[in-house]
Each structure stands twice: as structure tokens, then as C-alpha cells.
């Protein structure tokens, strides 16, 4: 009888002791980024403060970090292929645990913590699937023809065919005028190359005016 009592007492005391420090618990839930949580390997670690406390993911994708002393911790999940949110964990003197999402570049402060509190036990979801590789460019015929250089080339080749046909339809007078115009454009280009902008524009505008006047006169 005595022994039973003493055992009961020991168990009771032990239970009190085991309640003395807190456990940080949580679970990883599936989402669009990570539809199947079992994709995470058994090596997935949950660590507090860069290694102060470490535990591993269980098969049911839950985790429990035991015997955590009061303090402030950063909780993070080290998994292959996925990024997860980081959390601030606050274990207070009465071993209550509360959590908030962590923000890079901001040190823990009460105000931030209170305004960003999240559910506890932690409900963790993947944030991003890691895409390690650069996509390789494939040969895309359509894409090739969308290339501005190629477009220009095809256009100019096209012009090569079309132009003589257009020219052949003109009478001699119109041909002469066109040749003169071409000469003007040549002149214009030369001036542009020499950087003689003012003259270039004045000439060009003047000629344009003359041409329009001529046209009007013709009419």
C-alpha cells in the first residue's frame, strides 16, 4: 500500500515537474504550394534560435519542441524544396506560449508581436517552392519570327520584292520626283551624320513646304 502511494506521489511530482517547462507545438498544413505534406522528408527540422532547440518532423507532419525555457525565440523550419514562414515564439514565465509571424529586418518588440499574433499551436504552410534552376531557352520558331531583328529583316526582304513592282506602275515624271526625294533623304541622312541638325531640319522643312506648294500649284 505504502509503495503504491509513494509511486503515485512520485508520478504526481514528476507530472508537475514535466509541466514546468513549455512545449512549442505545431503542424504543417498543405496548401496550393505544397499540396502533399508527405513530400517533406523525415529530415525536416524545426529549430529555435538557430539551434538552441531542435526537433524533427513527425510522420503526421506535426512537431513538438519540448522543455523550452521562458524567453523569446525565432522558430524556423528547415526543409528541402520549400520555404516556410518564420515565427517569433514568446514563452512567458508561466509557460504560456504565444506566437507571431516574424519579419526580416525587424527586431522583436511587443507592439509588433501583439499586432501580428497568429494561431498557436503553430499552423505552418509553405510560402514558396524553391526553383533552383535557370530555365533553358528552347528553339521557338514563332518566337524567332517575333524577334524585332528578324521582323526588320523579313520586312526589308519583302520590300526588295514589292518595291520594283510598285515602281514599275509609275510614269516617268513620278519616277524622277521620287529619285529627287531619295536624294533629299540621302542629304538629310548625311547631315544627320555630321551632326548639322539645325540645317538639316530647316532644309528638310523648307523642301517639304516647297513640295506641298508644288502639289497645290499642280492642282
Amino acid at each position, binding site marked *: 500500500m505504502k509503495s503504491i502511494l509513494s509511486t503515485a506521489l512520485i508520478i504526481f511530482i514528476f507530472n508537475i515537474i514535466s509541466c514546468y517547462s513549455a512545449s512549442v507545438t505545431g503542424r504543417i498544413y498543405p496548401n496550393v504550394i505544397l499540396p502533399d505534406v508527405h513530400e517533406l522528408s523525415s529530415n525536416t527540422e524545426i529549430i529555435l534560435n*538557430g*539551434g538552441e532547440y531542435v*526537433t524533427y518532423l513527425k510522420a503526421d507532419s506535426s512537431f513538438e519542441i519540448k522543455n523550452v525555457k521562458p524567453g523569446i525565440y525565432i522558430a524556423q523550419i528547415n526543409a528541402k524544396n520549400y520555404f516556410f514562414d518564420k515565427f517569433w515564439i514568446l514563452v512567458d514565465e508561466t509557460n504560456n506560449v504565444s506566437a507571431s509571424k516574424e*519579419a526580416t*529586418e525587424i527586431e522583436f518588440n511587443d507592439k509588433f508581436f501583439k499586432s501580428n499574433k497568429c494561431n498557436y499551436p503553430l499552423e505552418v504552410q509553405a510560402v514558396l517552392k524553391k526553383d533552383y534552376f535557370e530555365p533553358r531557352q528552347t528553339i521557338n520558331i514563332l518566337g524567332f519570327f517575333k524577334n524585332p531583328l528578324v521582323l526588320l529583316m523579313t520586312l526589308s526582304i519583302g520590300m526588295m520584292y514589292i518595291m520594283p513592282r510598285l515602281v514599275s506602275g509609275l510614269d516617268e515624271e513620278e519616277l524622277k520626283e521620287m529619285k529627287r526625294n531619295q536624294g533629299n533623304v540621302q542629304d538629310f541622312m548625311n547631315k544627320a551624320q555630321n551632326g548639322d541638325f539645325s540645317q538639316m531640319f530647316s532644309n528638310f522643312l523648307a523642301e517639304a513646304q516647297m513640295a506641298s506648294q508644288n502639289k497645290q500649284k499642280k492642282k
Partner: protein
Amino acid sequence: MYKNKYLSLIFFSILLFVNNVFAIYKDQAGVIDWYQALVGTPKISYFQKIVGRSNLIVGTEKNVIANLNLRANTINWRQVLKPDEKLINLAPFDNYIISLSESKTSNVRIWNGQNGYLFGEYILEQGSNENIENGDILVHNNYIYALVRGKTVLKINNLTKSQEGKYQLNDNYYSKLFYNEQLNEIVIAGKNKKDQLIVTIIDNNGRIVNEKSISSVKFEISNAFFTGKNLIIKDFEGKIYSIESNKEFAKSLIYKDIKELVHVNGDLFIVEINNNKNILVKINDNSIEELKSFESVEDGIISVFTNDKDIYVSKTTISNNNSSLVEIINANTKETIKVFEIKNKFTNNGRIVKVSLDSYRKRDGTILYRIFTVTQDGSIHLYKEENIVWDREESLANIIDLKFISLPEITKNIPEAIVNSSNIFTQITSRIQYQFTSIKDQIFGKNKKEYSGIEDILKRDVYGFRQLLLFYTKKGKLICIETLTKKTVWTRFIGKDIDGFEGIKLSNIRSSAVQYPPVVAAIATFNDNDEEHTAIFSIDATTGEDFNYTNKNIPSSMKYPFKLLQTFRLSINEKQDKIRITAIIKSENEVEFYPSTQEILDTIKEEEKPIFFNLNDKIEGNTIRGYKLYINDEKKPQIDLLYKKVFPEDEIIVSYGFKEPYDNVASLGKVLGNRNVLYKYLNPNVLAVATIKPDEIYTSILTVYLIDTVKGSIIHHSYYEGGGETTIMKPKIVQYENMIICTFWNHGAPLTTEEQDKETKKLRKNIKKGSQIVVFELYENEIENQKDTNQEFTSYNYLQPYIVSKAYILDNAITSIGVTTTRNGIANREVIVSLDNNELYGIHSVFLNARRKISPLTNEDKQEGLIQYRPGIPITPKSIISYNLPVTGIEAIISNPANLESTSLVAAYGLDIFLTRRSPSNNFDILSDSFNKPILVITMAAVIIGTIYSSKKIKDNDFKKAWKIKSAKKEEKDKAK
């Protein structure tokens, strides 16, 4: 909201710096890199039936728990414990594996044997670190009893997954747990400080039933066993004692003197008597009964294993030749049931040191045996009876040093006349002849025959991607692996049969040239008659053979009767073989040179420049000493102490700066946006040292000192509140060019209270818990275009550098740091860090820049390529150079240039090994992999066709014009007119 901000930051930076990130293509994975996952040398190994199938479970010196594949050379799963956690024991339990490991807490974990998932975890807070090795696991029905740190027994109920009890013992030197089935009691035995046997018996509920200590027997605790009724002990003299559970004394049993006692089951034991004879015996209450003896009388290892209800005992002979005999006896029927021979490459692996066996039934009902062996070098081997299934070079998990060896250029068929002739004319003519024949060979395809094997590997390729990686393990094994194909070129076990061999360092004492193969020196310490000695071996790096000096007086290996303090390579060559001299510091005023001849001393004296070196405390020390080594007038080497720098008492050194031996600097200055230049402070003698001291407000303070090692002056010193270390993240420093990068963990600021004044609150905003990277850039002068007028740098010139620094935070803890090196130092340097989530991450130099501005950028800053300062370094998956490979336990990252300026070979080692090629500035010197060759071909073809067509057309037209031929249409038109 913050999540989005964080994400957008990542995406923004990806977009912004997409050109700065050198990511690989999916099809390059495994082509430009290779990876070797390791588990380490097993200290615990056994076969366990999990869901009816055999599994090989190992617990290793590297604190890895792994399930190894029995068919292929792969790991089914592994759990790598954190660096501060030590694996003490493993035990099978149904389909689970129970592990006991010790860190600052005692951890009992139950793992799923099939997939490695954690099933249950029980943690016990511990105050002191005493007797962590004294742990044992006992499984009985659904209960797990774990003895931790020699004094506490945990009782775990696996059905309810709860810890049912924690029982404290009255002594803390217990180390073994046994179960007494008859009385349902737990027998706990140990050996206390007074070398007494201590035994405590507790009942199921932890109540102490009996406690006793016996001092009459002198024994080792590993030689204490429980038959289910009595404790059996072998003492130092080879006598066997039996202790009944209710008696207070040990009863001596009359038998021959034995050398070894192995427990089989119940009262069955294997004893080893003289002449290496092993006998299966039954130990009764008062007598010992011999049942069956092993036939072989060679030295061997006894192993016990079970299958169904049968218990088997095996003896595996260990000899210095290449084969071992395995003899298996069924302990129930007392019959020899199998004898076979396994092959072990003794010269390469050394003797077998550990054996585990397994038996399994094939479908046709025959029983087959597997044998798993661990050899002296640390490698592991699995046999299916006499046939080898696989070899794993697990010695690679204990690398002391790793060196890249560049290969010599193609030396084949170079005529003697070119190499050795002193007459220039004959040299030239034979060179021309040689070139001519080689051209002829190439044209007529003589050289086209396939080279096979090692010969071909030992040729340098055009880009220099093919190099040798020479690994040197702690136990003295040299493993040479080729970088392109991961093929092992040669292995050599120099530590075999040398007592207490411990590898120290590898040193390239001759790099390869056309006519000289590369030579390395492997330096080690060993024991001889309980005294520590030093040895140095000269080894030809292409073959692994001893290097024979032309001067026959120089031996290829040397042994010195002292323990070395420090060793380094001099820049002076031995004349005949062009071997660099190695200095081995014996004490603060004694030194040995290898090779050592009078001629060499003379050469050192001729140099006139003294050699400066340091004897620094190891990590956790606090002193740095600088010395000068020179040859005095009596032609004897002399060492003078120059300075001794002691850090304050509570400050301990936690890290020294690491420099790549190959550190070429292409540009002496940094060109700024306004086309002015800031000249780099390129003092080769700068050593960065990080120290930590505890602090009341902040947990600790980390200080970085930049010290000139020649004169011992502190160039710069800066401290970081909250800076410190965690079990995973130790401070690390890497130095290159004028840059110093230090990483450490910041414990963050303490919580502020209302009482604290505003200033303290302001201060604490600047630090954040997490991993931190500090970058220092050293310049000669703050004023632009100011260059030190001296042509040659000397530490004795007064030149105080201008130092810029910035601190950054990274999301993950950093376990080690390295930097890429290129041939001429023109390409950008990329800092490579290994993270605690088993990734290797490349940080582009644009982020780790101390000149990043906090204020908005001006046009000049933009031209310089600066980006605005943000404390966080974004983690982009494309910069993870190890992509999805779990590169675990990395302790060092080293690099070596390839022949291509853009490319650097990077190797990371620790537990796993990873080798890759990095081009931080992209492949500017070769056509990039992303270059679209088909488009080029299509465009070229189109242009050619166009040209041909149009030239034809023009010719046609000209012809028509000349003959005034009108086209049919025109004629019709004219006619119509």
C-alpha cells in the same frame, strides 16, 4: 502584411539582380557537380527486421543514425544530429529504432525504422555534463528504460507514448541496464570512481530494492553481463566471477584464464583462451561447461545475431592478408553451420575492426548470411556471404585536410632531348620534330585510339576543370578523386599499423609542371612508446607512391621524436627536385626543416629575409604569439619571439580568418562612379581574429580584431553587442583581397522595459536576433586617388588603412564560409556559405559590399554598381548552388581556379562532400551555355541563301539590261500602249 512584404522583397531582388545570380540549368545538375552523401564510421551497427525485412542500422562517430540499403550503395534514410549532440546508444524495438543522445539535455528518441520519421521524443534537462557516455537502453515488452548520464533511469511507455517515470540513482557511474525476467526487476550495474562494482536493483516502479558495491574484483564494465539470474564478470586477469542477485560478494568460477568474454544469450558465452581459441560455454551457478569450439585458431571478432528463434555466433578472422574466414555456429544446436571466406583489401583498408551479421531466408527456403564489416581506415563493406555487395568509403567523413591538385600538362611522348638537352639548337630541332609528328599523328588518326583508365584521367583538359581532389583523413587515409568523373584515382592508407596516428595537414610541396608531377607532404602525429611523435610523408599526388628524391640522402618520409607545434611551407625550393621546404616547429626555439641539408640552410640564409610565423592558441584560447625564424651566423636556425598578444581574460578566441592559398588580385584599386580610384590595402599579413566575451545585458559581445602578424599591431578592432555563437553557428571568417567577412549569431537585444531610458531603447533597435554577416573593406586611404608611394609593401611602414564596414543579416544560420578564386582574380569573387538547412548558398559580391549606401543612391553610386543598403540579404533559390541536394555537416569550403578565368572549382566537405564549378561573373570567356546555336545557324543559312539568290537575280537583271530584254509583262504593256 509582413509576409507579403517579405515575399515582395525576395521577388523584387530576384527581378533586380537576375543578371547577378549565376544559376545553373537543370540539365547541368550532376554534370558540372558531384555529391557524396556519407554517414561516417559506425560505432554501433546491427541488422534489424523491420516489417519482416532485414535493414542495416548504423549509428556513427559523426552522430548519424542511418538505415543503409542492403542491395545498392545508397542510404535509405539518415538523421544527422546537430553538432553539439552526441549519439550514445541505439537499440532496436519492433519496427522502431530507439536512440539515446546527449547534448545539453539527454534525448531519447524513437524513430520509424522504415522512413526515419520521428515517432516520439523524450527530453531530460541536465545540469552538468558529467558521464555523458554512461547511457544504456533496455527494452522490455512495451516499456523502454533508458539510463542517462549514469544516474537517471527514464521509463517510457510506448503504448501511451508517455514518460511514466524518472528514477534517480544514488551514484552517477552506472552504465548498464539488465532485466531480470523472473523477479521483474531492473538490474543496473556500473563501476564507480573507486573501481568498485556498483549494482542497484529497482522494481518496475523505480523503487530501489537492493543496492550493493563489490570491491574485490578488478574489472572493466564492458566485461559485465547478466545471465537473467546472475551477474557474470571477467576481471583483468582473465578470471570469471558470478554474483547472485541477493548476495553481496563475487564468487570465482574455476576455469582457464580467458582473454575475452562475449555474451551470447542467457547463460551462453563465448570465451577466448590462449592461442586465439574461441569456445562456446555455458556458465552455470558453480561451473563452466564447454559446448563447442570454433575451428579457426586465428585472431578474430565474435559476433552474435539471431534469426527467428535461432541464435548464431560467428567468428571472423582478422589477419594481415586479404582474406578473412567467417565461421558460424548455431548456439541452440551447437553445430557449425557455415564457413566462408570474405575478401578485404588489407593494404587499402587495414584490418577488420567490427563485424555484424545477419541471416535471412530466401524464397526457396535456403538460409543466406550477410556480413557487414568496418575496417581500420573507417570504410564500411557489405558482403552476401563471400560476394561483396558494396564498399562505402566512409573514411571521407573524417577529413582533416583537402587539397586541389592541378594536373600536369600532357607529357606523353615528349622526347628526352626537349626536356634534358642543354644544347638549345637540339632542343629546338627536336621540338619541331615532335610537333610535326604529333600533327601527323593527329591527321592520320594515330592518336584516336581510346585511352582507358587512369592514364587518361591524369591529363589536364583544356579548361582545367579536370583536377585531383586529395582527401586526407584523420586516421591517415589518402583518397585521390578526379573532379570531372568522381573516379577514385588512387587510395593509400599511410596510417595503417601506426599507433595513435592522427593526420594534421596536407601541404602542396610541388605544384605540377610539364616535367614534374605534383608532390604533397602529409604531416601527422603518432604514438611511440606512449610518446607523441611527428611524421612527414612525401607522396606523388598522381600515383600515391612515395616520392623519391634525386638526392638519395633525402628520405621520402621522416619521423621526428617530438610533437609538432606548428608546420608551414617556405617559399624556398630544394634545388634538384624543386620541392618546397617544410618547416616543422618543435618548440618555441627549435625547428626542423624537411628536406634538411646544409645546402638548404644556406639557401634560407641567402634569402636574408626572416620568416615570420605565429603560434596562436587554438580556438578557446586567448593568446597570439609572433615569431621570427632565420639562420643565424653559426648557420643554425634560430627563432626569436617578437610579440605576445593576450586578449582580456574573459575573452576567448572563437575564430581565425581563413585565406585561400591562391589569391590573385587583378586590380589594385576600386574604380568609383566618378572615375576616381580607391586603392586597396593589400597587406598579406592581416589576420582577422574573432573573440567572444560574456555580457550581462547582451548575452555576449563579439569582437573582431584585424592584426598585422609581422609586428603584432592591431590595425582595427570593432565589437558587436549580442554577437556570439550557437551550437550550430560558430563564428567564421574568410579573408580575400582587401575584404574580410565575418559571420556570427547575434543573440539579439534584451527586452526593454518601461524604466529604460530612450537611449538604450534606441540602441537596441540596431540589432536583431539571427545570423549576421559583417563585411570589412580595407583601403589605403580615405582620399580618392591617394596611393602609398612605396613600391613594395612592408608591414613596418606606417600605413593606417581606411576601413569601411557594413553588417547584414541572413535568414539561416551559417555553418561555414568560403570564397571562389580564379586564375587572375579578374572575375567577381563569390562568397559561398553553407547553411544549417543543408544548402550551399552563393552570395553575390553586389550584396556583400561594405560601400552600400544607407542614403538614397546618387548617379555616381549607381555607376559604381552600388545598390542601396538593406540589412537583409535576400535568399533566392537560384543562388542555392547545391540545389536540392542535402549537403549536410559542412565544415569547410575551399576553391581552386580552373584555367578559364571565369570559373572556379568549389569543394565543400565535413560530413558530405560536394564539388561544383562556379562562374560568379558568368562565363565571359567561353560561349555561354545559354547561347542559342540553332538560331545562329538558321540566321546564317538564311543570309547565305539570300545572298546567293540576290546575286543571281542581280546578274540576271544586268544581263537583261545589257541585251535590252524586256520582261513579258512589260512587253504586253507596251503593246497595249
